């Protein structure tokens, strides 16, 4: 009874929120449902025939979640997932409720849930997942959890609550992620890159993970892929990168046009992948999703088909045609994300206008100091490709100062704090048939999506393409 009431109240409030045009109603109804029935999530999850997959870590959660969902769906399963990146507990509950009928009954086979690190311990206690995927750890939103070590301790806390034998898929190239494998009783799987050709000999940015998670000694690296991702070994205790079962090699990055690489798994023959998803970070996302699919028993053909047909999600290097101009939107919320998006842009030969939008709302992190850890100096090296800048958001001037101190010629006229006006200004400044690259952080991206939806260029983010 309590359960049914919770479902009804939540569905009603979601409709009301959209009716009042207060956004997608992707979180608040979940709070209502949970208030009425505190056990709602475990009751919803218990109805899934094949259980759930939890995806956590700093970067790549949303894309990896969507990819795993596509793979499961391709194999014929009915899957629910939190598509809009609403990854706090309330948002997760809403994703389940949307899949349920009016009385809270779910016909789905499986769920793939992107989870914020802070919510992870609570979620692990509420539902027992089939598989947990940990993508990577970078400094991000430190105003919420204080320090990165604290964030990692939340994941550790969650994992140690899981029943013995639960499967955990870890990024072999991130020593801090692999440090989690010290928790006993779980079944670990690894994914990583095996392609020294595209690696660097030096760490190219402010990064963490320089120290052994077991004994604290400085790690030695054979090479780096980006930030602290690479092939490492502790000279003191012997902690080292585990050899991954799931790996990629022969990687060719083609800037904004995507990449090609060989994907290897438990099948002896590798798969040739050609994807429109740009950047090395998307190679990692695909690698993780393919591994998750294999671990869950999905056949290679379904995995391959799903990966090939996959389109960018919601603001993650998403492409939109506006009049005769091509818009590429790339969410950036921390230094590692910034550096990798920029690296992808630099491989692109051709000119573009750049709109950068920096907000400091709670979902973004109210501390914007990460922009000083981001390698903005790279931008001045390719400024000849950039036809102009527009800088927006509540902390637009912080970003403008960052770019000025990176050696770019930034003037106050290029700053427009209002996101709608900045969008129009940037679109206007983009040459006919040209490219506009939009780099927002989280709430700035939501605001831009709304502006574009109002102008009829994209669907509102809460409308599922079914």
């Amino acid at each position: 009874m309590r359960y049914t009431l919770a479902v009804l109240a939540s569905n009603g409030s979601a409709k009301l929120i959209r009716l009042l045009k207060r956004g997608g109603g992707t979180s608040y109804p979940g709070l209502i449902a949970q208030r009425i029935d505190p056990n709602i999530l475990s009751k919803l999850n218990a109805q899934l025939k094949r259980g759930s997959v939890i995806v956590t870590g700093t970067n790549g959660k949303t894309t990896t979640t969507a990819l795993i969902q596509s793979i499961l769906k391709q194999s014929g399963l009915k899957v629910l997932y939190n598509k809009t990146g609403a990854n706090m507990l309330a948002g997760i509950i809403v994703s389940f409720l949307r899949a349920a009928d009016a009385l809270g009954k779910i016909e789905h086979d499986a769920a793939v849930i992107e989870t914020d690190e802070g919510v992870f311990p609570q979620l692990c206690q509420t539902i027992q997942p089939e598989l947990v995927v940990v993508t990577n750890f970078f400094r991000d939103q430190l105003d919420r959890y204080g320090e990165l070590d604290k964030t990692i301790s939340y994941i550790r806390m969650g994992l140690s609550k899981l029943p013995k034998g639960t499967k955990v898929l870890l990024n072999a190239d991130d020593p801090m992620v692999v440090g989690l494998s010290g928790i006993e009783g779980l079944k670990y799987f690894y994914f990583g890159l095996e392609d020294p050709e595209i690696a660097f000999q030096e760490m190219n940015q402010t990064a963490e993970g320089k120290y052994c998670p077991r004994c604290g000694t400085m790690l030695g690296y054979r090479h780096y892929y980006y930030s602290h991702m690479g092939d490492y070994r502790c000279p003191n205790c012997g902690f080292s990168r585990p050899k991954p079962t799931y790996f990629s090699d022969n990687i060719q990055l083609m800037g904004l046009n995507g990449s090609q690489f060989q994907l290897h798994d438990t099948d002896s023959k590798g798969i040739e992948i050609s994807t429109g998803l740009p950047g090395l970070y998307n190679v990692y996302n695909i690698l993780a999703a393919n591994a998750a699919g294999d671990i869950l028993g999905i056949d290679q053909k379904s995995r391959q088909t799903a990966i090939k047909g996959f389109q960018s999600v919601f603001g993650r290097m998403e492409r939109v045609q506006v009049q005769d101009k091509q818009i590429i939107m790339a969410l950036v919320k921390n230094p590692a994300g910034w550096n990798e998006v920029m690296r992808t842009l630099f491989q692109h030969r051709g000119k573009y206008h750049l709109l950068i939008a920096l907000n400091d709302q709670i979902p973004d992190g109210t501390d914007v100091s990460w922009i000083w850890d981001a390698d903005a100096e790279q931008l001045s090296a390719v400024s000849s490709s950039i036809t102009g800048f527009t800088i927006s958001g509540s902390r637009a001037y912080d970003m403008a100062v960052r770019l000025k101190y990176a050696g770019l010629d930034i003037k106050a006229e290029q700053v427009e704090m209002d996101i709608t006006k900045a969008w129009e200004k940037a679109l206007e400044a983009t040459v006919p048939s040209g490219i506009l690259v939009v780099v927002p952080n989280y709430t700035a991206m939501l605001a831009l999506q709304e502006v574009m939806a109002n102008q009829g260029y994209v669907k509102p983010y809460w409308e599922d393409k079914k």
Partner: protein
Amino acid sequence: MKLKIGHLYPNQMNLYGDKGNIIALQKRAEWHGLDAEVIPLCEGDTFLKNDFDVLFFGGGQDREQKIIAEDLLKIKKNSIYDAVHNGVVVLAICGGYQLLGESFKISECEILQGIGIFDTWTVASNKRLIGNVVVQTDLFSRTLVGFENHSGQTFLRPSAKALGTVLTGFGNNGDDNQEGCMTHNVFGTYLHGALLPKNPTFTDHLLKLALMRREENWKWQPIENELENQAHAIAEKIAKHSKINPVVQ
């Protein structure tokens, strides 16, 4: 004329965009018509009292602080004291600020000894002080703006002088309304953001102190500060409107 900036423990103490302070010192020195060079000072390195004009010491997590604490005490303490008494400018943020004090009690059973440049002591708390900060100093009329994020609470002995008074935010400990500490030409604070880029008045104050010590002839070129001033004004405004409560961990 060349300004030499020593960056203490850049591999460990570089939290929350602290690198921005080094960038601001170097860029503004250059824009004012000086040459500037940044030299990393890592574990094992020592230096002489005239080797540097400015020393910068950033923040780190407890883990990184533990790694460098011994080197600071055994290898660098004398070099830093000589430089400080010679009028060298020092800026220490967060973790660096804590270790320039007498001690940092991380837990009931663990105390990191500092080098006691500041007459302060720090105690870790389960409340984390996080948020935008505005501080009024008596060094100049403009406020200092930044972002704090620390579980250590720092207390000043009667002999110590605070960097300023907190207008918004927590400051040293959330209780006495004081923020940071200063002595000689040494400044310690919890503010990052990064601190110097959007507080150009403070950056120039530090650069001027460094140049005064050198007593050489130099021509100070003025800099256009419109973007920095706007960033400062907006940070002040946002801080005033933000709700702050300590985060209990």
